[in-house]
């Protein structure tokens, strides 16, 4: 399966799971991504017009590693690798997770919503 089809399959699975859970958990992960992330990050794999780095293929990627994107020195030298736990820690408070990062962001989600998004 090539990368595009794999991503599509994962997306469908995520949407399926998100919507199945939506009756009880709303806003859904899809909605939360739209509100809290999508203005600055795309799901592409290479830098584009968004000001934040692309999130495609994020999991297991070293932090600050997308070529062609200007990261803060703090993030680039953090030694972080993106996983569900590191992503949740980052989203909870980026400034605490990696001080002096470049993402000027206040997470509007509750802790439970952040978990749902992750």
């Amino acid at each position, binding site marked *: 399966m090539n990368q595009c089809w794999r991503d599509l399959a994962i997306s469908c699975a995520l949407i399926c799971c998100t919507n199945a859970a*939506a009756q009880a958990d*709303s806003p859904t992960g899809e909605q*939360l991504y739209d*509100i809290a992330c999508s203005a600055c990050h795309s799901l592409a794999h290479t830098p584009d017009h968004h*000001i934040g780095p692309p999130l495609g293929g994020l999991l297991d990627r070293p932090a600050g590693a997308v070529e062609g994107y200007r990261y803060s020195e703090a993030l680039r030298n953090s030694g972080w690798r993106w996983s569900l736990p590191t992503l949740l820690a980052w989203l909870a408070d980026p400034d605490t997770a990696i001080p002096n990062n470049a993402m000027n962001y206040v997470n509007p989600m509750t802790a439970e919503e952040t978990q749902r998004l992750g």
Partner: protein
Amino acid sequence: MTSTLTRRLLLQCSLAGIAAGLSGGCAKHLSGRKVVVVGAGLSGLNAALILERWGFDVQVVEARERVGGRIWTLDALPGSPEGGGNVMGANYGRVLKAAHDLQVPLRSPPRTLPSDYFVDGQRIARDDWALAEANPLPDAWRSIPPSGLMGKLNASNPLLQTRAWQDPKLMASDTSALSGLSALGFPDAAIRLIGANNSYGNNLDETSLMSLYRVMGEFGRLSGPALAVKEATKGNMRLPEAMAGQLARPIEMGSPVKAVRQSSSATLVTLASGETLDADAVIMTLPIPALRRIDMDLPASQATLLDTIDYHKVVQLHCIVEAPFWESAGWGGSWWTDNLLGRIFTRPIPGTTRFNMTVWINGDDCDALNAMDEVTCVDRVSRALWDLMPDAREVTSLGQLVRWSNDPFAGGVWALWRPGQAATAHAALRAPAGRVFFAGEHTAEAYRGMEGAMESGERAALEVMRLLA
């Protein structure tokens, strides 16, 4: 606009429709809940578009006959100068994304001409600033031009985290910019020069030093692939206009809100015309001076708080210059002064030999000007301009006076925080009151200005979705 809107909705439905067999697709998100958004500035438009994307029935109401709020391009003047929000920062991700998606062309702004100075009645050429006798700055600072003072102050910025500017622990020691500058040895003349051109307080005594550090920290935190500031090529108003064009339901223009009343099950928005709109939730995006004019059911503490927030005063006189009168005297074309005129920003009008020149007056110096009728005010400012630079008179025409404090739907340009005030006031002001939610740049936490407005619209949309899910 209609065809774009239809395509957009169809696209959203088709994306959601990937899982249609499993979840019912687009119809799943059509909750049918009604939301009234008060104010068609960036915060209101962003909130409305998010809610519409997820199936809410949104009605935006706007008091003015134009959208954009405190983005206001003066389209009638050559060069279409900005009377309101004028810079899209390089880190304004939401603003830049909206412009990209809506195909609003952006450009790097024409370069503002270099500044010379008028201090204590004396002209100081920019190249002579460091050694000029009239330079009022302390020795350690005198080589820095006035426009660079904040950058040097930022070296001691104690705010290391995005939200630290409202952290009660730090706010407890927040002091005024006046006492901060006095402690650094700035004499009265230097304080007068800085105070006349301070964009973050109406006077230095009431300017929070932490608020200044917040501004500096935000400027210093640029990232991303695009580092240069931008503006919309045909005027920044084109962005809110394009956003408004995406809404499914037309905005009710020229419809000031008179009252917002809540019952146990609904909220009633009464317009000045007498028309009423019932809603399941309301987002109030108005700046606080405009919010004060609306009859609302708010907790007493929140209502009282509204009366304590000041807004920054700005008076602008926009002029058109036919020829660069400054060149023969060796001036740069822009000026910083310690007198009534404040700053004078001049930039070329692309594709012409003319220039936009804006006299930009800040803070309490605006009080007397705001109390005058328009003709008297223009006369007062222009006389000061001709006194300072007589050569300008023959080649300069007066374009438009902008007085934000006198605009009943704005009441100033942005919210100000007095020393220590943000620690408690900011969270209280953005807190929902029943089914009424608040957005607008004054409620944003990470950014200010246009991006802060967009940020606040996201947060308010999320709060409404939680309520009405």
